[in-house]
């Protein structure tokens, strides 16, 4: 079953002086078993969009299809808990979802809430914490006394422990150190390739979009500007230049070198290949 938005509107604070239309007639179908990036300027509606996926926000108008559920605006929705077992959402500010006395308890909360035994929950929590790179010395510490980046890891572990089919991550690497960010992105790829998870990532990191994602959705002012395969987006169309977002580092370099007369193909996939292409050009007779 699909994940799709059909003519979805979302209005914050309707009929108040703060009324604000954050999503405008969104039509969007997300491919299952893929990693989809959602990008766009701040305030373009990215976080609002993804919060519809586990019914944290309900559409003001339109319909959201999520796996076997259909959420229609202005209708009563029962049993949203079963949906939240299937779709795990990690917020932009992870500290809002941490509340237990210890980190291990915090991560166990999800599985316990979905009726796992104490023993099972502990095992799931341990596995999830290992996945995000937090070792057992953290288990008994308070989730409120750790750094911002570590809180983010705990929040992600809390969702992984529930083992949802769809993982929705709102800027999962903001505040992570560069290696932490890299291993987090590699973890998502691993979960996608080997465990067939559908993954949606809201991000501002264009290098992450290029290096780890399959599809990309671009939002602006509450609308979808484009939705394409990552390779088409960066290498085929003009959209990437239109959206006024910084290019990934690798593309910045290839563009700058091309402007100075280097002949470089679009097929360059990493820094090693870029170095080889430069060498070929320089030593070319």
């Amino acid at each position, binding site marked *: 079953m699909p994940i799709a938005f059909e003519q979805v509107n979302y209005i914050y604070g309707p009929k108040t002086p703060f009324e604000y239309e954050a999503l405008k007639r969104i039509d969007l179908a997300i491919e299952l078993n893929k990693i989809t990036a959602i990008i766009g300027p701040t305030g373009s509606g990215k976080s609002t969009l993804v919060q519809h996926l586990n019914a944290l926000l309900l559409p003001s108008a339109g319909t959201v299809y999520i796996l076997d559920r259909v959420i229609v605006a202005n209708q009563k929705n029962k049993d949203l808990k079963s949906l939240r077992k299937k779709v795990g959402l990690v917020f932009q500010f992870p500290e809002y979802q941490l509340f237990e006395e210890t980190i291990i308890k915090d991560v166990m909360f999800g599985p316990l809430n979905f009726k796992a035994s104490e023993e099972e929950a502990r095992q799931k929590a341990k596995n999830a914490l290992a996945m995000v790179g937090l070792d057992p010395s953290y288990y008994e510490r308070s989730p409120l006394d750790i750094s*911002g980046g570590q809180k983010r890891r705990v929040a992600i572990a809390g969702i992984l422990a529930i083992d949802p089919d769809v993982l929705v991550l709102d800027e999962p690497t903001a505040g992570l150190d560069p290696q932490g960010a890299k291993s987090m992105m590699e973890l998502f790829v691993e979960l996608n390739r080997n465990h067939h998870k559908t993954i949606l990532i809201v991000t501002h990191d264009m290098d992450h979009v290029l290096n780890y994602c399959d599809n990309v959705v671009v939002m602006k002012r509450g609308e979808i500007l484009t939705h394409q395969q990552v390779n088409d987006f960066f290498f085929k169309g003009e959209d990437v230049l239109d959206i006024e977002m910084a290019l990934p580092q690798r593309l910045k370099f290839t563009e700058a070198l091309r402007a100075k007369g280097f002949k470089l193909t679009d097929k360059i996939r990493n820094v090693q290949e870029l170095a080889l292409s430069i060498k070929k050009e320089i030593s070319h007779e």
Partner: protein
Amino acid sequence: MNPIEIKNLNFSYDQTQDVVKDVSFVVKKGSYTTLIGHNGSGKSTIAKLIIGLLEKEKGSILIDGEELSLETIEGIRRKIGIVFQNPDNQFIGATVRDDIAFGLENHQVEPSEMDVIIENYAKEVGMSEYLDHEPTRLSGGQKQRVAIAGILSMKPEILILDEATSMLDPEGKEDINNLVKQLHKENNMTILSITHDVEEVLKSDHVIVMYEGRIVKDGPPSEVMKNEEELVRLKLAAPYSVRLANELKKLGISVKQEWDMEGMVDELCQLLLNK
């Protein structure tokens, strides 16, 4: 006199494990200094110690040569503006306008001047349209913009940014960085920025690196950021240009300006022309 001078600072949250270990550094007047390090290395803790939100265990914190203490803290806080990781922790007003006004009121700005200042800074951070919105209802990146406008409008002598632009889109980040740079120049503001953004580090005057609570490197970015192996060992990443320079070195091509994309592209272009 240095705006910030830290000597042999120690701190622990639980009295058993020190998270800041014998830290000493200086932030020079009018400099743009970046503080980097892996998650949990103690960066934010140091920011909180500097403004007296946490109490040090040992060592000293001197602001403009004055030791931070219960007697001096009020005066010192007037000089320092800080933007936190999570801007929600610093919103007070019911609207964006009120929120920026609150800080100005505390700095005894005349009410007649306030509107102009508020509108000016809201415009600078791209939030003019949102002056009558509730700060808590804004997106993460917009919240960060408002928090930054609120602090900058007070024109602090010392500005501490704790991952203040982590949720901004790349363009927004550049806009804010340019605004901060402009104020930095015009007012000779001293800036200490905690960041994971390699580009920002490369453009700073000075970079301090923390690892497990200690300062392990301290110098200009052209020196600190060029050793890829060492940066990886410190759980950081080298700039893309440095990684490319290392790959080129393996292939027998050496470049001199490995921390600077433009410089490196020019060097490679010369090699292409001289082949």
